[in-house]
């Protein structure tokens, strides 16, 4: 059986955003509200 000499790439496991970034995005999404006013749309960030 052929041996695998290449090391397993651990990179793919760690290649993901940090928890903080994901949390920030979810918080940002919750805080962002779009206000419709006479065919115009306004973005509002409410904390």
């Amino acid at each position, binding site marked *: 059986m052929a041996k695998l000499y290449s090391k397993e790439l651990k990179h793919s496991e760690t290649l993901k955003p940090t928890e903080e*970034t994901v949390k920030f995005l979810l918080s940002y999404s919750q805080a*962002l509200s779009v206000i419709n006013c006479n065919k115009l*749309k306004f973005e509002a960030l409410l904390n």
Partner: protein
Amino acid sequence: MIMRKELISDAVLVSDYIDGNEKSLAVLIERHKQKVYSFIYSKVYDRDVTEDVFQDTFIKVIKTLKLGKYNEEGKFLPWVMRIAHNLVIDHFRKNNRMPKFDNSTEFNIFSVISDSSLNAEKRIIKEQVEDDVRRLIEELPDDQKQVLVMRMYKDMSFKEISELTGVSINTALGRMRYALINLRKVIDKHNIVLTN
């Protein structure tokens, strides 16, 4: 729970999110974060930049979805990837206009602009060495000591020393020479280490 999440298609999650279900966004990010992040990293090769571009990508996704401008149902991931791709291009454009110094190559800027001030340990050693030298000078005969102090500590020229002490320049030079010879002798004799 995980099974259920996987069963819901992106299109359904997107439409749920547009309808106000914030949890759908969490599922979408969780589902695609690795692909999007890896894609960005494969272009920029920098963790911090990847993190920034990833964040900007999803901010754009969130805004577009909330503003109701999204119209590519069923093609959520390719759409996100396209946004990420455009932001990566923006990043490189911005960097070309305003190049940053890359410190990852062999040349290290800090080898040129290193901090020349001494650290606490070196400062103490320097003070000790200077103190030792002063004490050694004190042991020299008065005439030699006088010339050496004037030359080294008061930075006077041999002409000035000769005028002030009333001896010829040659005598002053000779006294300086003997002062140094005597200092070396004492240093060698007592194995005094005068380095820092």
